[in-house]
């Protein structure tokens, strides 16, 4: 049901109060792909007594339904999806709370649709333009600050991924920043990606991760016996990498 509704714009998240390591291992071993939160105490505020428990939230941020996942009907979900926005999973997208008018409207839209590089150029032009009104300059400065904040967040996260040996994931972010932004932001990201790829140890992690991704793709098509063999291959051929650890974890998680 979730896949069908995800395509229609339903955002599905799984929330646990457990600690990050426990959740991380579980997510890895079960191959879960949806966004999962750890260390959340929200279940208290939501009055959750037993789990699993589902809460459907409407486009106005109000609870539309709360109860057992097995009792949530498609009809209820369809109702809530009427007029719902589709959330961009593009991590470059920067939602802008109040859609500004006039000259700021287009850059704000670019930000929200995942083109912050384009937005940044336009906003700098507005900010530097002597003919811009005070309001326009202030508005542009605010939006530029939001872009800078988001770029910093992405850079920090990417470094975190690389540090945790999720190198491919980190590179995805740096490559995207390099492609999207010209100037110092893009250049810095490009250099970082190059340095990572040149690093011997990190290159091994990348190779392992790519092999694991291929194994996962194939596993989806093969029967469980052949799939297990693919993961075992990753464990054997990419020893010492995080990918090998994750493959081992998946082997433990998958019961034949």
């Amino acid at each position, binding site marked *: 049901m979730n896949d069908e509704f995800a395509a229609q714009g339903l955002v599905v998240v799984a929330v646990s109060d457990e600690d990050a390591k426990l959740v991380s291992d579980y997510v890895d071993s079960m191959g879960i792909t949806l966004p999962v*939160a750890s260390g959340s105490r929200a279940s208290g505020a939501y009055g959750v007594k037993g789990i699993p428990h589902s809460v459907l939230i409407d486009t106005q941020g109000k609870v539309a339904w709360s109860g057992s996942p097995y009792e949530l009907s498609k009809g209820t979900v369809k109702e809530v999806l009427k007029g719902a926005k589709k959330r961009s999973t593009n*991590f470059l997208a920067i939602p802008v709370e109040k859609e500004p008018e006039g000259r700021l409207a287009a850059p704000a839209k670019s930000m929200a649709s995942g083109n912050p590089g384009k937005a940044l150029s336009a906003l700098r032009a507005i900010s530097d333009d002597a003919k811009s009104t005070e309001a326009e300059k202030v508005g542009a400065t605010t939006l530029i600050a939001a872009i800078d904040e988001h770029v910093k967040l992405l850079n920090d996260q990417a470094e975190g991924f690389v540090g945790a040996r999720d190198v491919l994931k980190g590179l995805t972010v740096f490559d995207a920043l390099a492609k999207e932004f010209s100037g110092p932001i893009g250049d810095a990201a490009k250099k970082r990606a190059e340095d990572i790829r040149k690093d011997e140890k990190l290159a091994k992690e990348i190779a392992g991760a790519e092999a694991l991704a291929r194994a996962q793709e194939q596993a989806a098509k093969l029967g469980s016996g052949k799939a297990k063999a693919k993961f075992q291959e990753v464990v054997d051929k990419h020893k010492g990498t995080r990918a090998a650890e994750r493959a081992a974890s998946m082997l433990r998680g998958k019961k034949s």
Partner: protein
Amino acid sequence: MKTLLALGFLALGSLAVVGFKSPAADGIQPGAEAPPLNAKTWFNHIGRPLELDNLGGNAVLVEFWATW
């Protein structure tokens, strides 16, 4: 009096057990403002921590669960 009261509660209690169960019986009531998720860490996600205030305009299904 006490016995009557106790019997009364027992009766109500057994109603709940037997299955007087509406979707709203367990947990927050429909119509209420959805509380923030306040997660420490997000997996399978890049970017700002997912929070209801940056999901405005989206319909969200929150699945509360655990690894056990």
